[in-house]
């Protein structure tokens, strides 16, 4: 007997995601993922000044803020042929790393942790035990028995108040929760600490971009000027503050996030066999060290892995018309003709054919989502930290390979465990260690450049649209926290003629294609055990492991 369950809203994500799933004998047999909100950014961008596009695009998402701005300035620079100065590249890289660190830590503690950590069980923990465990896994100073017992008192009082706020109606006590009470208590403590911590790291964005969320970007470089002899510019004080913030971030990642990850994962090793999903992984690569044209020198390599075959890397070219294509067979859009469209030829025309709200079920035979369905050479691809780690691993990238190996060793698990819900969550942690380290490297490089007398942050060449060709096309690719992101722009007569975004969550969360191939969310849910169809905890675990962002996915 099978049962159709609906989870809508999926919470602890960005945006409006609906999952419908078929459950039979305690396992999911089929699933449909639908994005239920659309804004039409691609329509709104038409006709505007390409140099303004970054600001519009940045508002696609406030969780991965900056990523769309970065992709957008790159798209325009690619279209009109601008090479930015080295310092601008470094500052963008630092901001990139900061975004990645922030996003991953917040995801782990505030969006994902409650799938694994039982807040109520923490009430029963022995603070001394929690302290002992905490001290055995990390040097983090906030680990005394007193600290944990104070926290526990606070928590008890909170629960006794009867007003449970964001914890109300959670899945507490569900048999899928496996952690001992003491570890749950540590998890809750770090949930709160991470909340305090996350507002510090983003100050790097504030220094270089003026604010966070939504710092400022600029076609041709970065808007902040460097002048170490001036109170009004990026000077020694500002640079020193960046150093301190990056160092503190690294300490938190190394002493809190990673130890927690390694403490929680062993209790859930069964999840290393669940939620694998599609077997293909795509990565555009990012963190250029010699200009965005020199793909070979990216810190995150570019490439695709097909069928989990880590012995082969497939070349990826976002400009290849038969590479990336978007389909709308199950999406509420219409095309003027043809099937898949490369984004330079992409179209965005709403065509809602779903049920009139309020509705019980979507018509999953027809169109059922506002996400388009992207494919790479016809394959459904997973994108994200896991794909980055896998492509880096397959490409033989030393730092990535070492980091992956080290973590697998700590978990005493073979590489195969990576293709899973747990693998995705672990890959995010591994990546954060790397970006936290790289951020400091980039910053060091920036300081060296300045010391050597190069303080340029912007190139004026081609700033003036009158220097542009009448028709120009460009791609701005990036690796957003949730995966491969690219913007395609067509400029005609100095205005945007076409602008298309294909976003990480579009890759992962899209509806199936005409051939019935499922995208990663739908595919990864199949085979997931469901203890009680009324309580969708297991669905949340796998879906959250992708870190969904629906505002991004639909835009």
């Amino acid at each position, binding site marked *: 007997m099978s049962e159709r369950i609906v989870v809508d809203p999926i919470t602890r994500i960005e945006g409006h995601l609906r999952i419908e799933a078929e459950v039979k004998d305690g396992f999911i047999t089929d699933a449909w993922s639908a994005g*239920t909100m659309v804004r039409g950014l691609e329509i*709104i961008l038409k006709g*505007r000044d390409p140099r303004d596009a970054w600001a519009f695009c940045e508002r696609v998402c406030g969780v991965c803020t900056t990523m769309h701005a970065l992709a957008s300035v790159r798209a325009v620079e690619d279209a009109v042929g601008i090479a930015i100065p080295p310092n601008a590249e470094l500052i963008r890289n630092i901001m990139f790393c900061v975004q990645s660190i922030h996003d991953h830590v917040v995801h782990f503690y505030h969006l994902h942790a409650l799938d694994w950590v039982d807040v109520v069980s923490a009430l029963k923990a022995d603070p001394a035990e929690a302290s002992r465990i905490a001290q055995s896994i990390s040097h983090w100073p906030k680990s005394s028995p007193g600290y944990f017992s104070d926290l526990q008192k606070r928590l008890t009082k909170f629960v006794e*108040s009867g007003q449970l706020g964001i914890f*109300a*109606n959670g899945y507490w006590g569900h048999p899928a929760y496996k952690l001992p009470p003491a570890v749950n208590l540590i998890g809750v403590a770090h949930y709160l600490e991470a909340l305090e911590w996350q*507002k510090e790291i983003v100050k790097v964005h504030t220094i270089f971009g003026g604010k966070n969320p939504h710092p400022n970007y600029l076609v041709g470089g970065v808007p902040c000027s460097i002048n170490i002899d001036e109170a*009004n510019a990026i000077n020694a004080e500002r640079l020193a503050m960046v150093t301190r913030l990056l160092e503190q971030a690294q300490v938190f990642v190394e002493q809190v996030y990673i130890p927690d990850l390694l403490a929680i994962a062993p209790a859930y090793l069964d999840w290393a066999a669940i939620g694998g999903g599609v077997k293909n992984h795509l990565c555009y690569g990012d963190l250029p060290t010699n200009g965005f044209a020199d793909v070979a020198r990216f810190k995150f390599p570019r490439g695709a892995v097909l069928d989990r075959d880590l012995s082969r890397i497939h070349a990826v070219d976002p400009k290849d018309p038969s590479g990336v294509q978007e389909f709308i067979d199950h999406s509420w859009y219409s095309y003027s003709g043809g099937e898949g469209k490369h984004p330079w030829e992409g179209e965005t025309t*709403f065509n809602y054919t779903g049920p009139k709200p309020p509705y019980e079920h979507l018509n999953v035979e027809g169109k059922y989502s506002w996400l388009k369905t992207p494919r790479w050479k016809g394959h459904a691809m997973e994108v994200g930290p896991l794909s980055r780690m896998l492509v880096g691993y397959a490409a033989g990238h030393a730092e990535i390979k070492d980091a992956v190996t080290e973590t697998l060793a700590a978990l005493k698990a073979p590489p195969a465990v990576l293709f899973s819900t747990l693998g995705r969550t672990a890959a995010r942690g591994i990546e954060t260690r790397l970006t936290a380290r790289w951020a400091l490297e980039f910053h060091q490089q920036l300081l060296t450049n300045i010391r050597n007398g190069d303080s340029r*942050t912007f190139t004026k060449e081609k700033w003036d649209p009158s220097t542009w060709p009448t028709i120009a096309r460009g791609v701005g690719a990036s690796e957003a926290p949730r995966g491969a992101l690219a913007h395609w722009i067509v400029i005609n007569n100095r205005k945007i003629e076409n602008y298309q975004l294909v976003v990480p969550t579009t890759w992962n969360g899209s509806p199936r294609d005409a051939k019935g191939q499922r995208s990663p969310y739908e595919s990864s849910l199949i085979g997931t055990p469901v203890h009680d169809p009324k309580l969708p905890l297991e669905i949340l675990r796998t879906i959250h492991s992708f870190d969904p962002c629906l505002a991004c996915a639909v835009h």
Partner: protein
Amino acid sequence: MDILTPSPSVDSRDTTTVYEQLTSRGVSRRDFLKFCGWMSACMGLGSEGVAQVALALETKKRIPVVWMHFQECTCCSESFLRSSHPIVADILLDKISLDYTETLLAASGHQAESVLHQTITKYKGEYLLCIEGSVPTAADGVYCCIGGRSAVDIIQEVAAGAKAIIAWGNCACSGCVQAAKPNPTSATPVSKIITGKPIVHVQGCPPIAEVMAGVLVHLLTFDRIPQLDALGRPKAFYSRRVHDTCYRRPNYDAGLFVESFDDENARKGYCLYKMGCRGPTTYNSCGTIRWNGGVSFPIQSGHGCIGCSESSFWDNGPFYERLGSFPGFGIETTADKIGLVVGAATVVGATGHAILTNIRKHHEIGEQPGESAAQGPSTSAGESSNQGGTQS
């Protein structure tokens, strides 16, 4: 599971005040008063305000808050979490009871819906409704649905029992980017949908964290809406233009301008007016409170203000032109372009007219019959001129 499922009861809520919550969490009396001082300064209450704020926080109960997300980017939530005063994040967790927000809620699906339902029925007329995002009204609301219901539908239900509404950010206040032309989904701000409820517009894309916190504390402390400006924004935070509190203002008055990004002048921190800075037409606290704990703000980091706390700022672009394209005339049509075109047409017209005049009015020009004493009473020239004149 059962321990936490019982619905919140009014009685137990009444047992803890914000102050008790804080002290139980290890916040010292001194820190608490410091916070009160900061809050009252923020709200423009001065030193007498401190006691008022402190008293309110010591005695007031946690107010239930329902935070809805419609068409938005979650950035307002993100900004809110950045509230930087040492204990603001704590206060907000403890001072209010954030009963529903999709971003942080542990429960999903039916469990989430039931939390929402419990709060709005149990605390009817008492809860504070925060709205992030605009509401698409086109096509029966299908552009934003949650749990199978349209945002248009949901907002009516949640607003009905709200004590007051806070519209977070440009999305909820004026539609923001999705309402920029051509507004394909008919993204509509809250105030155009909900009437008869007090609505506080906390503008910005996103608003400054401390401003968001400040508005909440004001509502909690005084149990009433702060003073609002003509556009519904709290005066405490939106009564001054960015330009009036901008530290680069002396450069503006001295006519010292950045002429291109990263030029000599940019490196000296001259005024960004000619880079399109919208500070002179934008009301916000960026120059005073600044961002992320006072670290910086857009102008301090070298980019002009893009006017993110003003309605329809997206259509006031291009951002790097000092005056935007003329509203309603499409992109690249500045007032000066319109003026120059019409002005040139006028000059051409006048020149043409002058030439025409010399041809058509040839006979009227100059001395007319009888105008000059020396000319005599009648001339044949006068006759012919009149003939010419009457031919037309």
